[in-house]
């Protein structure tokens, strides 16, 4: 059990931290700590500790509970026991402590040693990544403006700059291009507050960045800065690789919260006369309370931001070898093949493996030149990185090469150059070449990239065009007026109603003979089926249809007499006319007389010859 102070002022915050080691506690028993008032907590933090001593491993788990109390009355009090119920039902109790509460202002202030810039809340704060900062930090410093207890006496003059703030920590401020930087964003608060919300996250322009996964529950830590106790929460950890040289800036993080600010309430003098006894008693009680001085908690919305962080990025030395592909850090490099002997047209897997620590995601594949008898495909890339403690992992390029000629070959002698940060110079690694034996008969490679070599456009002169000629452009409105309008009119005409006579005449000659052929074929079917009635009906219909179409007359207007007249007009011989009329007569008669199938067949054959003769003349 830790206690911030055994002697506190009225309204001053009393911090009690209870640590339970290897206890499986379940529940906090009490709710009241008279005369102390619980204003914050208990906030829980957990820590695991594993140690190996003389080959024996022991581990312990410690749960810390942080309580914040204030007291409104002066006096000497024994702080009540804080009791936890454990998993097995027994109780764990804290030691009783005597706390002395004195009047406000009676405790001596700690002398201020250095006046920090009042506008820079971080001046003199301790940088967890800077090993030299600690010595200065050990000396306690009281923050200005507020009193040591953190209670504001005048609520109108609130300045929470020193109570809640955020900070971006980077482990290095001067790096090479491609050197890893580890940035962490922390919030510090000395006040209780309701929820933190990010308004604007920092911008990492000019960096390749990747978030380091954070535990689901953010860990709260206690840190003493300038003699004041802060709760710090690390909200984000990022791995950064600068991609360009120069001074790069990480823009500030902006956050907002609602802070619970303790404000002391001044004693009020009430000059009003009490109206009745109850009010008089009430006023007396109030007066007694206020004369001691109370503390109220005000909810104050507060926006704050971290400072921006400037990072100087040094360019890499200029004498980079040709095999340098952007790697910075420390690497090992290897190449593997899956077989040493293969046939032509068989695939050879060639693997390049890069292991190490550094800017792996930014490294391009090393260039390999293969024998022309191999057809090389674009590599497949496999990456596997871990970002803690420093960015490291493996990058694997898988190539497929297909030989087309038998013979003895060598895999390319590969070089990989990176910039070594420890030695501050370029280091070249080589993957030795391996002999490969290719058997089988030569095969043809697919024509792939040879086209580029055949015709080198870069060496050509551009073609300059023939003399310039103006062109008239027709405006779109004119086009729609002249072009589309007549088309629409043509459509309207097409859909205008036409009289029946006209539409009949539009049927072209081809369609007529088709129709008659169809009817004749139908008649033939009936003939074979010996369906007498249907046969004669179909045949008669075919005659009339044919004549009507050929003579351009309605079928209903046709009669034997006008047929012969019209046919004579079309210069059909009298003999043929007579035959035609004879056919019509016979088919009409056939409907009512008992001609045999023999007669049907002769009639059918005769009709075919007559119609063919007519077709020749009428066309």
């Amino acid at each position, binding site marked *: 059990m830790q206690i911030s102070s055994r002697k506190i002022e009225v309204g001053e915050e009393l911090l009690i931290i209870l640590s339970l080691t290897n206890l499986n506690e379940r529940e906090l028993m009490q709710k009241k700590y008279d005369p102390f008032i619980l204003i914050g907590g208990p906030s829980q933090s957990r820590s695991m500790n594993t140690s190996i001593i003389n080959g024996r491993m022991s581990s312990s788990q410690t749960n810390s509970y942080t309580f914040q109390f204030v007291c409104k009355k002066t006096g000497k009090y024994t702080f009540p026991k804080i009791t936890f119920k454990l998993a097995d039902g027994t109780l764990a109790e804290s030691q009783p402590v005597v706390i002395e509460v004195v009047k406000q202002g009676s405790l001596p202030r700690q002398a201020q040693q250095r006046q920090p810039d009042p506008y820079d809340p971080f001046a003199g704060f301790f940088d967890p990544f800077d090993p030299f900062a600690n010595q200065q930090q050990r000396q306690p410093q009281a923050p200005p403006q507020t009193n040591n207890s953190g209670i504001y006496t005048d609520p109108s003059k609130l300045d929470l700059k020193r109570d809640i703030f955020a900070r971006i920590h980077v482990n290095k401020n001067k790096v090479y291009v491609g050197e890893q930087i580890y940035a962490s964003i922390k919030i510090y608060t000395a006040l209780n507050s309701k929820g933190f919300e990010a308004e604007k996250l920092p911008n990492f322009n000019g960096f*390749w960045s990747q978030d380091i996964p954070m535990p689901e529950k953010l860990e709260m830590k206690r840190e003493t800065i300038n003699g004041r106790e802060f709760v710090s929460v690390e909200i984000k950890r990022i791995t950064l690789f600068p991609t360009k040289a120069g001074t790069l800036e990480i823009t500030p993080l902006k956050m907002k919260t609602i802070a619970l600010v303790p404000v002391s309430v001044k004693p009020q003098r009430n000059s009003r006369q009490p109206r009745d006894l109850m009010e008089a008693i009430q006023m007396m009680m109030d007066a007694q309370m206020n004369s001691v001085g109370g503390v109220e908690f005000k909810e104050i919305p507060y926006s704050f931001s971290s400072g921006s962080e400037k990072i100087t990025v040094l360019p890499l030395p200029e004498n980079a070898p040709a095999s340098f592909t952007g790697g910075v850090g420390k690497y090992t490099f290897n190449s593997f093949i899956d077989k040493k002997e293969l046939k032509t047209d068989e695939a050879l897997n060639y693997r390049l493996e890069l292991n190490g620590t550094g800017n792996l995601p930014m490294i391009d594949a090393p260039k390999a030149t293969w024998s022309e008898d191999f057809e090389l495909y674009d590599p497949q890339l496999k990456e596997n990185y871990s970002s803690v403690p420093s960015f490291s992992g493996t990058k694997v390029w898988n190539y497929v090469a297909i030989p087309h000629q038998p013979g003895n070959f060598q895999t390319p002698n590969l070089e990989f150059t990176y910039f070594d940060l420890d030695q501050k110079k370029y280091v070249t690694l080589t993957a030795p070449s391996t002999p490969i034996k290719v058997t089988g008969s030569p095969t043809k490679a697919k024509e792939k990239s040879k086209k580029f070599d055949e015709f080198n456009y*870069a060496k050509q002169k*551009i073609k300059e065009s023939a003399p310039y000629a*103006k062109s008239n452009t*027709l405006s779109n409105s004119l086009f729609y007026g002249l072009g589309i*309008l007549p088309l629409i009119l043509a459509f309207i005409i097409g859909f205008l109603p036409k009289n029946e006579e006209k539409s009949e005449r539009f049927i072209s000659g081809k369609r007529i003979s088709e129709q008659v052929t169809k009817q004749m074929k139908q008649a033939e079917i009936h003939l074979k089926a010996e369906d007498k009635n249907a046969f004669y009906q179909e045949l008669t219909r075919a005659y009339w249809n044919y004549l009507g179409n050929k003579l351009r007359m309605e079928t209903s207007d046709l009669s034997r007499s006008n047929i012969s007249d019209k046919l004579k007009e079309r210069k059909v011989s009298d003999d043929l006319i007579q035959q035609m009329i004879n056919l019509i007569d016979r088919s009409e008669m056939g409907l009512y007389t008992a001609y045999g199938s023999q007669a049907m067949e002769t009639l059918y054959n005769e009709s075919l010859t007559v119609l063919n003769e007519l077709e020749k003349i009428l066309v």
Partner: protein
Amino acid sequence: MKNLSLFIMLFIGFGVYSQSEEALKAYNAQNYEEAISLWNKELASPNRSLEQVFFQIGNAYFKLQDYSKSLAFYEKSLREDYNQTDLKFNIKVARAKLSLDTENKTLFTHDWIKKIAYLIPLNLLKWMVIVFSLILFILSAVHYFKEIQYFALFKNYALIFVFFLIGLFFLQNYFKSEKGFAIISKQTTGFENASMKGKSKPIHEGEKVEIVDEIGNTAQVKTEADTKYWIEKSNFYII
């Protein structure tokens, strides 16, 4: 094709050539800057031939060794008239100068459909539609009053042809108004993220990219390798 060119001659006006003649002179005298400014004036004049002016400006920038700008003007010219063999050749030369590959798939997209769409120059196409629809109108009017054998069939073929022409007209108009492409003006870094951080990749000068999205001063572009990156708008010429 000879009949076609005769047809063109009917509808081309013979204007005053002074501006373009001067520009050609300046170009031949290797005064490329002057030629560019003269061609730009020509752009503002009536009855200018867009594809030719853009082609000339592109050539002048090529001579000034500003290949990406030259590519931007070539692309503009290509949009006006796709069937220009010289122009396509020059595009490949300019790309080769920037060591970009000359056989890229994205270079001439929808090749055969564009070849058909640009088969007949737009202006000629318009006149052809006008003439054929007038013919169609007269045919159907005559047909309505007087019957002629095989007339209907002829009318139907004419109708199909007019529709084909109108189809070509709209297709060509569609390709001409196609927007959202740009040429990268200088080697730039593209980011996968709109906040311009995170994974990045260099984008080569002269690459033809498609603008997919825009936020403020940055735009998301689809590169020739078919991947999307965010870059600053000042790093490309919109074509």
